[in-house]
């Protein structure tokens, strides 16, 4: 059971590292959004799952309370994070930022 906690923490930290380095390395707003938001959401799911596993593994009432509150926090994170990313992408498009090295804009043609 403790191995499970270590593995979940390691996976979560790896994906959070990839997300924050994608923010540095990628060329424009949309690719940065793609890298950073999805990778950090995925990594945060895994670190929170490690805390949930830790709370249920310890077993007593206080740690079970910790695990259940962590589940509520995970649900809040899962609802709010992709919605915020979608709002940012729409705002960046409407404020006139073009993707780097883009040659056609199909969304412009449709409207």
């Amino acid at each position, binding site marked *: *059971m*403790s191995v499970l*906690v*270590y593995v979940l*923490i390691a996976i*979560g*930290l790896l994906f*959070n*590292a990839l*997300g*924050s*380095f994608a*923010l*540095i390395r990628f060329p424009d*707003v949309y690719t*940065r*959004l793609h890298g*950073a*938001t999805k990778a*950090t*959401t995925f*990594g*945060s799911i895994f*670190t*929170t799952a*490690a*805390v949930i596993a*830790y*709370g249920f*593994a*310890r077993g007593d009432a*206080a*740690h079970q*309370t*910790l695990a259940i*509150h*962590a589940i*509520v*926090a995970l649900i*809040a*994170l899962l609802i*709010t*994070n992709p*919605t*915020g*990313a979608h*709002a*940012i992408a*729409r*705002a*960046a498009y*409407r*404020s006139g*930022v073009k993707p780097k090295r883009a040659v056609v804009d199909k969304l412009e043609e449709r409207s």
Partner: protein
Amino acid sequence: MIIDPLVFFVAAALFLFFMFISMVRLGLGPTTGDRIVALDTVNTLVVAGMIVLAAAFDEVVFVDVAIIYALLSFVGTLYVARYLEGGL
């Protein structure tokens, strides 16, 4: 079954390091959209770090603070995005 709480402290320290990396983009992003993306990433890392620190210190209150922080930062992100669209 023994889990060393040190692993949670190490994870929280690495989260702090990732936050500093994201703050580089917050400082020098060319457009406003880049800065919002960096701020959203920092918010997500803060929430995840608070949950990990709750397990490290065995304090349930930190998780409640993390829930409220997630919801309020979501409202802040939507507000800035709406302002950038020009609908405000």
